[in-house]
């Protein structure tokens, strides 16, 4: 008897796929040359050291090879990527001053509305530049700085110079070097000692131009005993040419501080998302990552936490949904460098319609980290037999005092679970729906409220027939 499969719809993308007419004020030539980098740097009025940094990064980029692991990146042709697209808009603190088409884009994405209801500050980047930034006045009075990276580079140059690409040096990998050469936009956050930012800050990155790259840099410093919740969102409309995202996030969580960094990535299906995120955590500090990867054609994203101070902690919660035409290679890494550090990594991956989801992780415990504890849990759900789901964790443990555990499961929705729920009076469709919702629940409950709607799209399932 022919059996039908469970069908789970892709995320509704219409909202994200609305394109604006390209009204950019300036576009660099496609490709990557010293002249292009000098041009970008001049337009941004970079200090000399930053120009030098960019040029050195270009040298490193030219020396490094593509990674010999992970998804195939051979279709990425840097000669066809426009690395800098300046929108026809100046950075402002008022939505009324943002050009109408750009404002409408962010309206559709719900950013101004969220700003009114649930955020303490907002940054909005359109192509290569931030077009809007705001922060509540009471936070400014407490010394909190939340601005775009270009402004920070000029107004807080020493802080930026001391931290910029110190956690993710250009030599780290080829796309870190690329980022160092052509970075543009992004957010800078500084939370002074003892200040608790109770309401989240959010930066949203929108790439509108076809064939372009976005290379925003996010630098967050949370001083001793301070706390912050930062939300990052990103999307782009779909084009028939490859777009590239090679952002970089550097997070400095000092002693006793706490930072929650939440991301919902919903790039279009022509995007190569090669992003690098890293945090260093001081004594008694806490980094919490909440990461949702739904979009892009190819993703390589593995937030890294360096637990440098004694008793530093990391919590990583991630969900990845790979559908048709997607190869999402995601995960996390943790490096324990001090005694009594601890980490908890929990991920869920779903693959369907030929999508490929890979979970990749690394846990490294150095000799200097006795009594380190780490627990890794990865669950993968496959919704058909044309998709792929791969799990590739690595543990590298030095010393005899670490306590490390790893668990992973892979499979599909079990018939037994469906039958059990049906025996309790639940319809078959609802039973499947409940199981998928339950599968992503540990992640969904960690997401910021404003992203609950987006997550609901994920579990907006359409069920037909019986289990395959």
């Amino acid at each position, binding site marked *: 008897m022919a059996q039908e499969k469970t069908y789970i719809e892709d995320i509704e993308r219409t909202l994200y796929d609305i394109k604006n007419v390209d009204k950019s004020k300036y576009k660099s030539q496609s490709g990557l040359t010293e002249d292009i980098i000098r041009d970008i740097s001049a337009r941004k009025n970079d200090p000399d050291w930053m120009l030098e940094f960019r040029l050195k990064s270009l040298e490193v980029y030219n020396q490094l090879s593509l990674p010999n692991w*992970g998804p195939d990146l051979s279709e990425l042709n840097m000669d066809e990527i426009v690395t800098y697209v300046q929108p026809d808009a100046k950075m402002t603190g008022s939505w009324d001053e943002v050009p109408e088409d750009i404002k409408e884009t962010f309206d559709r994405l719900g950013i101004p509305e969220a700003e009114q209801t649930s955020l303490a500050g907002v940054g909005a980047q359109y192509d290569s530049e931030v077009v809007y930034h705001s922060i509540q006045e009471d936070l400014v009075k407490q010394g909190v700085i939340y601005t775009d990276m270009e402004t920070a580079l000029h107004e807080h140059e020493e802080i930026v110079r001391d931290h910029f690409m110190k956690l993710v040096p250009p030599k780290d990998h080829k796309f870190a070097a690329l980022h160092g050469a052509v970075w543009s936009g992004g957010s800078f956050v500084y939370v002074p000692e003892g200040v608790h930012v109770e309401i989240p800050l959010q930066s949203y990155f929108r790439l509108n131009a076809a064939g372009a790259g976005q290379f925003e840099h996010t630098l967050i410093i949370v001083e001793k005993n301070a706390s912050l919740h930062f939300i990052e969102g990103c999307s782009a409309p779909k084009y028939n040419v490859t777009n590239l995202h090679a952002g970089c996030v550097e997070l400095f969580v000092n002693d006793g501080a706490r930072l929650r960094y939440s991301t919902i990535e919903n790039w279009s299906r022509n995007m190569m998302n090669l992003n690098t995120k890293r945090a260093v955590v001081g004594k008694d500090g806490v980094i919490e990552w909440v990461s949702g990867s739904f979009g892009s054609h190819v993703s390589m994203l593995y937030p890294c936490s360096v637990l440098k101070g004694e008793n530093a902690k990391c919590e990583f919660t991630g969900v990845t949904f790979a559908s048709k035409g997607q190869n999402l290679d995601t995960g996390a890494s943790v490096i324990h460098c001090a005694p009594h550090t601890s980490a908890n990594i929990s991920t869920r991956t779903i693959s369907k319609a030929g999508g490929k989801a890979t979970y*990749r992780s690394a846990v490294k415990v150095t000799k200097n980290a006795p009594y380190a504890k780490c627990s890794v849990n990865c669950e993968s759900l496959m919704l058909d*037999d044309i998709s*792929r789901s791969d799990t590739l964790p690595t543990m590298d443990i030095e*010393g005899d005092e670490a306590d490390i555990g*790893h668990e992973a499961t892979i499979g599909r929705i079990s018939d037994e679970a469906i039958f059990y729920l049906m025996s309790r009076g639940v319809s078959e469709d609802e039973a499947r729906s409940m199981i998928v919702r339950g599968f992503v629940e540990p992640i969904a409950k960690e997401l910021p409220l404003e992203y609950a709607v987006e997550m609901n799209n994920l579990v907006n399932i359409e069920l037909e027939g019986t289990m395959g």
Partner: protein
Amino acid sequence: MNKEIFSEIPMRTWNWLGVNEAVVDKDLLVESQNLDIKIEADHQEKMLVEYRKESYGIVNINIGENASLKLTQLQLMPQDCDHVNEINVVLEKKARLQLVAVETGAKSFASKVNIILKGDKSQADVSLLYFGDGDRSLDMNYVLEFQGRKTVGNLEVYGGLMGESQKIFRGTLDFKQGSKQAKGYEKENVVVLSSGVRNRSVPIMLSGEDDVVGNHAVSSGKINEDKLHYLMSRGLSPAEARKLVLEAAFNPVLELIDDEALRQEIDSYIKERLENE
């Protein structure tokens, strides 16, 4: 450089972890001792392979329909030797493999095991014991490839590490498309006895088929202090207490070795190492 890649994991990861491949001296790979075995359909066999002197051993096995093989491979090389060994098995329909492997010898060794569950309802149960001490280097790469329907693969690994030994264990469950209703299970328990140890584990699960069940788990930690204190309070020396706890940890593999004398030999070997540490 006089080195050569001996084995690689089926899917590469970050190079900085140093686990993508096992590299050995070319000299070790010059001359291999090959053992080709065919277990005819409906036959049951038992085999013992022992490595006690420097060699590159390759065992190729085909297990016919409804046949079974219990293969015990013991690597008890002297401490000053390097060693590589390799097992390749193909299982036909309803064939069964029980592999008991013990890797306790050699200064530096690399082993690779590739088991293909080709026939429907074939099953492989793999039990591995490894023990590292001194400055020994242990490198293992085990792959269970599920091709047939309703295939079953279990990989249970028990390890003990002390001194400044370094170990990499890679265990892969690879569910190929079409391996419907296959079940795979992998477990590695490592007991770490010294602060100078480096312990790397790579439990990989690859799946191109949704109708499978795959699980893997790894735990790594020091020997249970409460157990040690209890045993020492009963008059055992620290070495004796550790040996007893380790023996209990290794028992699931040791008890599968049919030959009592060999079991005693391995037991004595580990005890001696613990006492010399």
